[in-house]
């Protein structure tokens, strides 16, 4: 087993990995950028090293700096978390060259799955079902028109290097295709430096369901059940659950077997996720494989009773999987809410800043993976994910009720969060009935202001207004020294120099 692991990440996932290491008796090394000196992962690790300015390209994406820290600290392995360098085959190769174990698949598997067209070609060979279309980039608009005619409109144009909805276009008619292809190609070029775009039949109102797999380095591969990820806002996952309301044991087994086939075709090792699109007849199609630990891995941990990060580390250390497929049992139901620093009243715009008050939920069936704390200044430079709140119950209904209770207890002041969004989703009749697809949340939000639509009785609101009025006065009497962060106060003297630096840099960059 490793004695020391470097965590090449930040935020809640870095904290989660540090916790796993501590449980296994492994020392941890954190890396941090200038604006993350006060971040929770730096406080929780055994060692921590600065790797440069706020911009990720200058710090968390710098392979050379991270490998240098690994060498200096004597780290034997690197856990990349998700995002940043986690799916970068060059980084995995650089780790191997430096004699540091990369906790994840081999560079070869990552390369194969990194390009969507290349993955489709391999899966075609392996006989895995995927959405009809091309497995190579389009060479001309005419070719696109011909394929679209063959598979039938509507069709989806997708960037081969894509992700997060970038370089993606839904096309309903032949007339739209040419201009959609041009804009998808230029967006793909801008976002990924690669203009390759392919075409596939658009599945109308699909569900997005993925399967967790785990493979050791001795040829054993298992599946650990599905995650329902259809609740998305603009192609970004917001809430995930396991199991899916529409997957029965037979479908689960079939999806699991296909996922294992995909992993084996890629010679896959460590934890990975095979994503499927599911149509209204419950046919499932291979979409892509994510070659990393997923944000939503906790729902699988709760329903299987396994610790995926422990297992990732054990597999990387050369151990065999300690169980077989027949030992995997799915029990109960888990739902995860991604708590983002974003403002529901302002079109979910990111909301960084200082957390002035934080009240956190706990109690039965509640797990909270968090990277924030009261008094912390959420930097503006990274992804707005603050924490994940996961509810577990005997069944789906109990998991929902526990989450509703926990969300009622959760309170974050100073910055805006999307906590109210989950209160809205969890009490929605269609969600409770399990009736939704990937377009569900955007439709729900288009319905308008929840305060107006929910229509709480006038009298109830008036009664609460009375309480609010009395409370405002009582606060003024009992707690007059409001800790109001005045303009420019960014949380104490420690953060002042970095602000200066940041300003200087942004000016120097212009």
């Amino acid at each position: 087993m490793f004695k020391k692991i470097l965590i090449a990440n930040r935020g809640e996932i870095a904290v989660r990995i540090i916790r796993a290491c501590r449980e296994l008796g492994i020392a941890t090394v954190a890396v941090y950028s200038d604006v993350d000196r006060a971040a929770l992962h730096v406080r929780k690790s055994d060692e921590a090293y600065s790797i440069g300015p706020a911009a990720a390209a200058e710090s968390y994406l710098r392979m050379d700096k991270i490998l240098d820290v690994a060498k200096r600290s004597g780290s034997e392995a690197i856990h990349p978390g998700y995002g940043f360098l986690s799916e970068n085959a060059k980084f995995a190769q650089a780790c191997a060259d430096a004699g540091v174990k990369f906790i994840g698949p081999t560079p070869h598997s990552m390369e194969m799955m990194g390009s969507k067209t290349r993955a489709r070609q391999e899966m075609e060979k392996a006989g895995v079902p995927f959405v009809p279309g091309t497995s190579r980039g389009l060479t001309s608009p005419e070719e696109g028109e011909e394929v679209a005619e063959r598979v039938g409109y509507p069709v989806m144009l997708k960037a081969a290097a894509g992700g997060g909805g970038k370089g993606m276009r839904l096309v309903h008619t032949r007339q739209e295709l040419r201009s959609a292809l041009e804009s998808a190609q230029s967006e793909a070029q801008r976002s990924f430096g690669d203009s390759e775009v392919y075409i596939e039949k658009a599945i109308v109102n699909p569900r997005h369901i993925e399967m967790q797999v785990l493979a050791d380095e001795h040829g054993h591969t298992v599946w650990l059940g599905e995650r329902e990820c259809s609740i998305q806002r603009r192609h970004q996952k917001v809430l995930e659950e396991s199991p899916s309301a529409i997957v029965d044991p037979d479908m689960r087994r079939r999806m699991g077997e296909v996922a294992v086939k995909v992993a084996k075709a890629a010679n896959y090792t460590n934890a990975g996720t095979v994503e499927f699109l599911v149509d209204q007849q419950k046919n499932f199609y291979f979409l892509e494989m994510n070659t990393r630990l997923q944000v939503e891995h906790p729902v699988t941990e709760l329903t299987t009773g396994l610790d995926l990060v422990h297992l990732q580390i054990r597999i990387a250390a050369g151990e065999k999987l300690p169980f077989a497929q027949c030992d995997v049992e799915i029990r109960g139901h888990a739902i995860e809410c991604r708590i983002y620093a974003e403002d529901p009243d302002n079109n979910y715009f990111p909301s960084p800043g200082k957390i002035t008050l934080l009240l956190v939920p706990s109690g039965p069936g509640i797990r909270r993976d968090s990277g924030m704390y009261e008094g912390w200044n959420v930097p503006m430079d990274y992804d707005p994910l603050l924490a994940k709140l996961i509810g577990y119950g005997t069944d789906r209904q109990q998991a929902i009720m526990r989450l509703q209770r926990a969300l009622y207890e959760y309170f974050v002041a100073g910055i805006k969060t999307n906590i109210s969004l989950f209160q809205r989703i969890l009490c929605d009749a269609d969600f409770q009935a399990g009736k939704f697809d990937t377009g569900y949340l955007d439709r729900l939000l288009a319905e308008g202001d929840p305060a107006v639509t929910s229509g709480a009785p006038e009298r109830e609101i008036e009664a609460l207004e009375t309480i609010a009025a009395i409370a405002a006065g009582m606060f003024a009497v009992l707690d007059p020294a409001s800790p109001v962060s005045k303009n420019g106060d960014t949380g104490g003297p420690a953060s002042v120099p970095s602000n200066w630096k940041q300003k200087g840099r942004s000016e120097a960059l212009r």
Partner: protein
Amino acid sequence: MIYEVIVGGKPHRLELEKAAGGWECRLDGLSIHIDALVPRRDVLSLLVDGRAYEIKREQTATDLHMWVGSSRFAVELHDPRSLRSRQKSAGDEMGPRKILAPMPGRVVRLLVAENSAVEAGQGIVVVEAMKMQNEIKSPKKGVVKKILATPGAAVNPGDVLAIVE
């Protein structure tokens, strides 16, 4: 203590007086006995006739909010004897309005020039944070008196970006 409290746009007169076992509270002339405790900063435990409430206080760069359960109320608190607080609130309604940065970020570009006429809701400045761009809009119809934001500069919540009159 006497306060003028505005909740949801409605003004109330609130009187609070220490009494045996709590506080005597008169809201718009109606008398209620309450028990109030601040267990920690910004959190108030309020007992009213056996009903228990936990209220959280949030002060943003621009507003004061009271959270009762999951419901948020915008609140203004004035001391009616203080002339200054009245003048301030009147000035906010009628005169020049400051446009404040709602969150830390970086000014990307200006959408209008000084002295140009703008409509209520028209974008004035674009501020970027967490890789998203946000248009900061004018709260009223008028003329952009002054622009203090400069493209490329970092801003903190509450910083004045522009003034519309």
